């Protein structure tokens, strides 16, 4: 299915990636070409087939719900673009 510039704008917004207006058309063409190649999956009969989400056959293991490490804010914040008093500093989210 071909997708248009408006759809690219919407998807880019959902993905939180700023795409300039002039790139929407070329991206729509590129993504449409990829999606039309993917369309061939429609040929496969998948009636009654269980979706495969993992290649692991064993159930996910449970572990004890205990703290194993922590209490080291300087390591946690070491890569932060902005921090203050052992907190991450982020843009204001409420007025």
């Amino acid at each position: 299915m071909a997708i248009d510039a408006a759809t690219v704008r919407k998807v880019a917004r959902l993905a939180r990636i700023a795409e300039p207006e002039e790139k929407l058309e070329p991206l729509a063409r590129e993504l449409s070409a990829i999606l039309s190649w993917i369309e061939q999956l429609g040929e496969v009969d998948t009636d009654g087939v269980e979706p495969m989400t993992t290649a692991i056959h064993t159930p996910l293991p449970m572990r004890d719900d205990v703290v194993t490490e922590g209490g080291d804010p300087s390591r946690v914040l070491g890569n932060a673009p902005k921090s203050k008093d052992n907190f991450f500093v982020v843009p204001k989210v409420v007025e």
Partner: protein
Amino acid sequence: MSDLTSLTLKAALDGMAAKSFSAVELTQAHVEAVEAAKALNAFSFPTPDKALEMARASDERRAKGQTGRLEGAPLGIKDLFATEGVQSAAASKILATFRPPYESTVTANLWRDGAVMLGKLNMDEFAMGSSNETSAYGPVVNPWRAEGGNAKLTPGGSSGGSASAVAAELCLGATATDTGGSIRQPAAFTGTVGIKPTYGRCSRWGVVAFASSLDQAGPMARTVEDSAILLTSMCGHDPKDSTSLPVETPDFASFVGKSVKGLRVGIPREYRVDGMPPEIEKLWEQGIAWLKEAGCEIVDVSLPHTKYALPAYYIIAPAEASSNLARYDGMRYGLRVEGQNLTDTYEKTRAEGFGNEVKRRILIGTYVLSAGYYDAYYLKALKVRRRIADDFDQAFEKVDALLTPTAPSAAFALGDKSDDPVAMYLNDIFTVTVNLAGLPGMSVPAGLDANGLPLGLQLIGRALDEGTLFSLGGAIEKAADFKAKPKKWW
């Protein structure tokens, strides 16, 4: 000292055990080789001081009689692995300044066994690419050149730095990762050995996530035995990765050299694709003949859903990537580009920090997971994935392993396919099925094409049966007697 860099990993370990040379001497030779090979752009962040410090510590351990399985062996580490205190950027601008406060389990296992880190290896950004051209550090160059030509060729991707560094003898071996063929295709393009183990063999903890249900780490090396030694160290159950399998790791090297007599090897007819170069077809026939001579029984098998593997992969992998890469929001680590409000900051940070291929895949992933398209694309792809895995299950009722070409061509020139995403994706046509089914796959160098460029054969095994692949890979290696090396121009 150049003879020290041309040793196999096994010979280097034996040489240090026999006190013929020290870990410091071996490491110094490799540090110099890395320094002299800047034209290959294989290392994105060499760590010569750390390497020599680790080598000194290794020599001290050896003097005290404490020797690990990889004691003193200098290795390269793909930039996708978190290495404590050392830049780990996944070849992306968004992580350019990231220095992890922790070590990935796979690299921690290597250091536990005594290995030495030469530095971080260049790769496609977030492991998304088949030619290494999506790296924020620029493309890696293949040490191989076509006879009589000097065009720069791709080493393949995404583990192109690993492949180039191993082929050019800058390290004895390297870590790599494989989501759709990123170990095996570069191995084929550079005349090296690469194995992606069964999903769950290697812990994914501390490996930057691309598509979590497909990502697996594995080694690249110059011989089958070397890759077996490395894989044995890399594997092992890790409670920090819930998909890490609670199984024992065999000594994989013990399978190399074992007789393959009586093994049944399947030849999947669907891998004979249109437009495959006759040389690859011929090499495949040659591989079949070698295994027959070694006593294998060759069986014709069918994997009917093979052609749907790539399109299914290009829904599943971007879908998982769009979710995994949501964490790069400029708040806790990595790049932040300040905007007018929170959303604007997110959007500007991600627009500035991600390259074009990564953005393309995030957009596709977001689209196929969005309301109204989820069933038609994502769910459909997961059902096709099941069909592909079922094909393998049926084939493995009749055979012990499968033999196929690794890639549909030899290494191509940098820039050749960068304008056509789908043409680039087709590089993984023979490798991607294995990731979808979670099976082990290995590429072994088997010959040269008419231009003198290496070609590889792929072996695919049952889940957790890497041992059979090491035996068969060893048999092909012995029969092919692949001794060619790239002529040094760098």
